[in-house]
């Protein structure tokens, strides 16, 4: 048994190299252990006091978000909630104010749940995770990182130090919506994110759509044709429903998930397009769209 509190990335990497598991907010790790999902690891290194993991660095090229940045900060950060609005939509939906306060972006990404709310937004934004160990550092795209429910391709000694996202082109933006039955302490029944670029003539010149909770990992929708916003939204809806591979469980049937993920995809494209045109669509889109029972 051991528990150490790292204050630098190097200290954390040393601990990981000797077999410790990182705990950031613990809102997956500790809660999962209490549920009996997996026992608490014997050797833990707390990474929530590493200031290098708390940074949000913005350049002309893009943004680097430290793995330790929590969902509350991502929801309210002025640049993120404007230029990377789909990511802020996702963080704003996580749990409750206390979950958003302890839960980190790195924890969400590395927990690798197919229902994770930052997953689809990161996928459509083309984000990369920076993984570091004593052996070196590498960057991995989201599609290569997530390999199954709760599984990822990082090695046990690798720490996710940051998420890198390129600055979207002009007249581009993103949005994420999830179907939920109530407005907090909820898990996505299904969800969809879209990133859209609008050409000078008002048509969609680029689109990416990714889906939440309809496959063993977050998946990206392929083969969506370009055209007007309405045409692209309809095409995204059809492709999302077709490409989803949902399961039936206590929360919804596979048939219902397949249908509603198309609805979420259509609305995500529409909201991303409105934002790309400079219309204010507040974070999270879910609330403005009236999804979930009245609180």
């Amino acid at each position: 048994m051991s528990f150490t509190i790292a204050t630098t990335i190097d200290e954390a990497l040393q601990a990981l190299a000797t077999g410790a598991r990182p705990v950031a907010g613990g809102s997956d790790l500790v809660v999962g252990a209490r549920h009996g999902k997996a026992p608490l690891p014997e050797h833990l290194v707390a990474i929530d006091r590493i200031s290098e993991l708390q940074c949000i660095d913005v350049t002309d090229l893009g943004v680097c978000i430290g793995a330790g940045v929590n969902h509350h900060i991502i929801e309210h950060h002025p640049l993120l909630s404007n230029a990377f609005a789909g990511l802020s939509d996702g963080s704003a939906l996580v749990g409750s104010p206390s979950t958003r306060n302890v839960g980190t972006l790195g924890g969400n990404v590395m927990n690798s749940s197919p229902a994770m709310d930052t997953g689809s937004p990161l996928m459509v934004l083309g984000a990369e995770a920076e993984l570091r160990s004593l052996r070196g550092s590498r960057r991995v795209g989201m599609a290569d990182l997530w390999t199954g429910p709760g599984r990822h391709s990082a090695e046990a000694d690798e720490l996710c130090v940051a998420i890198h996202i390129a600055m979207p082109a002009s007249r581009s933006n993103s949005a994420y919506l999830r179907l939920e039955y109530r407005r907090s302490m909820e898990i996505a029944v299904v969800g969809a994110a879209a990133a859209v670029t609008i050409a000078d003539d008002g048509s969609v010149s680029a689109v990416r759509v990714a889906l939440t909770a309809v496959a063993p990992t977050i998946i990206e929708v392929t083969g969506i044709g370009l055209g007007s916003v309405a045409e692209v939204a309809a095409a995204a809806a059809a492709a999302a429903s077709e490409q989803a591979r949902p399961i039936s469980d206590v929360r919804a049937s596979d048939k219902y998930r397949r249908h509603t993920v198309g609805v979420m995809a259509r609305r995500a494209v529409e909201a991303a397009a409105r934002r790309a045109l400079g219309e204010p669509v507040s974070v999270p889109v879910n609330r403005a769209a009236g999804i979930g029972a009245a609180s």
Partner: protein
Amino acid sequence: MSDIVNYHLTVNGVDYPVNAAQGRNLLSVIRTEVGLTGTKEGCDDCECGACMVLLDGQPVNSCSFLAVQAQGRAVTTVEGLQQGDEMHPLQRNILEEGGVQCGFCTPGMLLSATALLERNPSPTEEEVRIGLSGNLCRCTGYAKIVAAVQRTAAELHP
């Protein structure tokens, strides 16, 4: 190998030495080692908010947070809200508005509300409801709790 660890917790400004198993949650350490029982255990599953405390001023479900991970940080429980002999305005208003029935959710509600007003001194009703959305109440129907928070906000920031 022993899994007992020795560390210190600062709760409501007072330093407490703790010897407890590494996996113990903050809630059980506060209630049994520190001896402050205002913080409640409801679901013990990170769902109900009865166990809410503040860690460096921010809300945390103490049932699902490792006590060892709270060392070196300021823990605030409901016992830390009152100012001398005076109740905190939120405590007074939740009583006056009738926002307390069985009282089991009340400590957690008060701490979530404290964190909310710290971040947002003049919240709308919707913002209060979002701020308290991690706290379940089985008795009141919430309206009077929300009213108490809004009344407190109006008193503190007229």
